[in-house]
């Protein structure tokens, strides 16, 4: 299922892996302490000492971007996991059993998709207040319908296949068929959706934090950095550009990856 000859997939994999590598290393080591302030070295331009320069507190921007990318990735990871887990459960059960519960949930699902997801996220976060964990929760919940729909479709398709009928004839229980036999077969389709989920989570976090509704200081995040950096764009353009570039690279990597996995790359 990983088509290494596919150029799009390769490009996506390389970008994503490099970003992940930097983030992972960043958890244990960054060139500077991302929070260490230096009154003498404020707003320093990029150079050999500070790769991406320093911010208004004299903090090393490279270290902060690495840390911020990590935080943003963490948010994306958690929210996608929540959406995926709940989506698997709901979509799996409704797809497998069908019936009126299925009908009802799908109607509900259709109605939910009438609200642009970013708008819904904004509304929910404005209600429940910002903060890292609230974002994770809100995004996670918003991802459920998408994953549930995909899982349901796939499960319903697989259910009609011979191997499921065989298993049933052999007396395997429903739960076992669903989670042990069917689930592994729908992964390829799901992976592409997961990559898009990451993509959307990064964008949503950045947008919300940019509006000041998302991650709050002192927690780092790319969107928040961008919000801060906007005030210094003329004096220190490197600040906003590095945070923006990190967002773009993360999104680009996941987008290409999803496409390479067979999705159409739509967000």
């Amino acid at each position, binding site marked *: 299922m990983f088509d290494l000859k596919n150029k799009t997939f390769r490009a996506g994999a390389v970008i994503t892996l490099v970003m992940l590598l930097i983030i992972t290393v960043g958890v244990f080591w960054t060139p500077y302490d991302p929070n260490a302030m230096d009154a003498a070295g404020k707003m320093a331009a990029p150079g050999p000492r500070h790769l991406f320069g320093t911010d208004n507190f004299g903090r090393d921007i490279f270290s902060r971007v690495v840390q911020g990318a990590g935080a943003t990735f963490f948010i994306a990871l958690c929210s996608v996991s929540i959406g995926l887990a709940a989506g698997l459960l709901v979509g799996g059960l409704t797809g497998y059993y069908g019936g009126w519960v299925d009908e009802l949930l799908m*109607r509900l699902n*259709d*109605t*939910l998709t*009438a*609200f*642009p*997801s*970013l*708008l819904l996220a*904004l*509304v929910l976060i*404005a*209600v*429940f207040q910002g903060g890292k964990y609230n974002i994770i929760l809100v995004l996670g919940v918003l991802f459920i319908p998408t994953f549930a729909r995909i899982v349901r479709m796939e499960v319903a398709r697989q259910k009609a296949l011979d191997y499921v009928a065989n298993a049933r004839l052999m007396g395997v229980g429903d739960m076992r068929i669903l989670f042990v036999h069917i689930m592994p077969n729908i992964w390829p389709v799901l992976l592409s959706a997961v990559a898009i989920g990451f993509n959307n989570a990064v*964008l949503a976090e*950045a*947008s919300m934090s*940019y*509006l000041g*509704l998302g991650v709050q200081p002192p927690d780092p995040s790319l969107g928040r950095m*961008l919000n801060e950096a*906007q005030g210094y*764009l*003329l004096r220190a*353009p490197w600040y*906003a550009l590095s945070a*923006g570039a990190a*967002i*773009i*690279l993360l*999104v*680009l990597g996941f*987008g*290409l990856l999803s496409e390479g996995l067979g999705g*159409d*790359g*739509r*967000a």
Partner: protein
Amino acid sequence: MRTVLRKTGVLILTLLLVTLFAFLAFELIPGDPTTMLLGSDYTPERAAALRESLGLDRSVAVRYLDWLVSFVTGDMGRSYTYSMSVREVLRGKIAVTAVLSLLSWVLVIAVSVPLGVALVRYQKKPFGKIGFSLNQVMMAMPPFFLGILLTYLFGILLKLFTPGKFVPLSEGPGRSLAYLFFPALAISLPKIAKTVKLLRASILSEMQREYVLTAYSRGNSRWMVIKNHVFRNALLPVVTYLAMSLADIVASSIIVEQVFVVPGLGRLLVASISNRDYPVALCIVVMIASVVVVMNYLADILTQAIDPRVRLS
């Protein structure tokens, strides 16, 4: 015709569900509007009196029906926090967001179709290759970040417009549109990139079909084949996508409005939620959702009109 009728029925049902959802959502939200309005010093008596004057003492079902009937008849209720009707609060703002969204949408359609075709036509040339890579990067651009970049590039450095100096539509539609062009650009560029990508993929996959080979065998050039045979069929998924993308455009315009200080619905929506001014927030949410539902419906109908084959499935 019967399918159209059936779809219209589903449309109305969905619209009803949307209003019900939105209404219930604001109902379940923690935080009572009365405590928000009365501030930190209030007595239970005053809270009860206020609840009564706002009509909050009635049951949810009664209030929902009441609200729905007035909403459909054009009465959007009164704002809790501002001493004016919701209509007055929203006055001018709906038009601004609508114009901005439509302008972005028109930009998307006008640019992405020729660009997508051009990228296929020059697929093997440097233009096609570089264009495709740039397109990939543009897809990953968050609109608000693009907005920041455009503000500084065109506003501060090149002085093509004055950031923050939006001219109301009523005072000068021309100047207003000229200003909105830049936020519209920020909103539409990533969308254009996605549409181009989709159109390109759609044309390329259509090129694999048998009828294309037949067309080639009749001595048509590649460009002629694309222009006369493939384009129309390849457009089909794109039309659906374009219709549905209006939803995302409205959502991003709400964020990009903040970057360009455009007085649309965006800030009002966020502020009315944190002030627990539900009549205003509900009205905005329902209006946006309705636009989305109706657009999806139209896309559905339109797809059928273009391609009768769809009717079978």
